[in-house]
């Protein structure tokens, strides 16, 4: 995979956005916002266990879990969990796109998701640049979190 290619799951989401006109892109983002799953019990009410995405306009928290079971010890599978308030549907929508787009992907694939993912959704006209930067920040933090967890586990084995 080159850096300009998206994993299939994210490519499909981007295509969904690109295939509809501007006003409907916001409706689609709202659908994603509605679909953001509730936090699992271990994080619910435990913001301190999560990482805050301070670049976002609203309090947004993420947690990343790596599944090393089975054949995945070298390249674990990623699960992203995000807490975003109902009053922040745009942030929720972005979080949900990312959550669905990377769910179950190998860490190596997640680390190669292109940085310009937010602009590929075609929302630059509908949303302010600040909003789009918030999504880029979310992706950046996801990758950094994955990278740190991978580095820690390498350290453990050494």
């Amino acid at each position: 995979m080159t850096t300009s290619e998206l994993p299939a799951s994210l490519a499909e989401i981007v295509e969904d956005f690109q295939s509809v006109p501007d006003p409907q892109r916001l409706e689609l983002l709202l659908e994603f916002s509605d679909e953001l799953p509730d936090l699992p019990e271990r994080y619910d009410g435990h913001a301190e266990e999560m990482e805050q995405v301070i670049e976002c306009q609203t309090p947004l928290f993420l947690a990343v879990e790596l599944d090393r079971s089975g054949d995945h010890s070298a390249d674990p599978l990623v699960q992203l969990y995000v807490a975003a308030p109902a009053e922040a549907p745009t942030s929720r929508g972005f979080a949900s796109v990312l959550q669905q787009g990377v769910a179950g992907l190998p860490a190596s694939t997640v680390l190669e998701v292109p940085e310009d993912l937010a602009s590929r959704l075609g929302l630059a006209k509908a949303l302010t640049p600040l909003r789009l930067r918030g999504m880029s920040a979310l992706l950046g933090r996801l990758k950094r979190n994955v990278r740190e967890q991978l580095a820690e586990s390498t350290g453990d084995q050494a």
Partner: protein
Amino acid sequence: MTSTTENTEFSEYAHPEKLVSTQWVADHIGDENVVVLESNEDTLLYSTGHIPGAIKIDWHTELNDPVTRDFVGPEAFAEMAASKGIGPDTTVVFYGDKSNWWAAYALWVFTLYGHRDTRLMNGGRDKWIAEGREQTREVPQVHRAEYPVTQRDDTTERASREDVLGHFGKPLVDVRSPQEYTGETTHMAGYPQEGTLRGGHIPTAASVPWAKAANEDGTFKSRAELEALYRDEAGLGDADEVIAYCRIGERSSHTWFVLKHLLGYQNVRNYDGSWTEWGNAVRLPIAVGEEPGEAPAL
């Protein structure tokens, strides 16, 4: 115009007709000459549920010009208003999230275009929800109206950076956070950096963060509290002319509303270029720290 004579709860303010209660909106939203507009920071928020019958207005796509850093032109404004069922005599009620911050901004832009009957719903979206009032995702059918193309007045309620330079010696109000005022940061806590090169404030400006004008429930503070805050603490006194600014002119729209309509200052202008213009401009004077600083010799 729709009568608000039955509505006496805001009589302490200088222009009580500029505020309506949530109950007034519940009672009048179906009226023929009333249009209720929701204006939020988060453009998707309206779609998650809004006051039944309310119409969305998007400050980013409908009030700002897509190319030049300015508001939309006269034709675009008239078209936008007509498409929302607004005529020149319509009572337009604004409400929104964050203590009506963005609602005040939309109201201010309507004022630049000379729309006469504009009002804010006191307490905004949060108060409506806190009172357990009905919300819906259903977008109302709008009957298009006719709106004349009118010229925007950029001098009475709006200040340019040249106006600010010519204003030294008269009161300026900086409504940003204390950290933005001193120059410690150039953006609000929890918000991303917006690319301002220098931190600080316009020399002589008094610091009154905008949210001090609002109660916990998003409603405006009492006349007496507002008088104490602006007239006394910030030293506006009986000033003839005041200019307020923030970062891009949205938070200061809220303060503009307070000074003009609730306290009755005659000449209040909002400098919408605000810190993202001033803090990036070459050779404009800047003060840092907690003191207002001296007026520069120009």
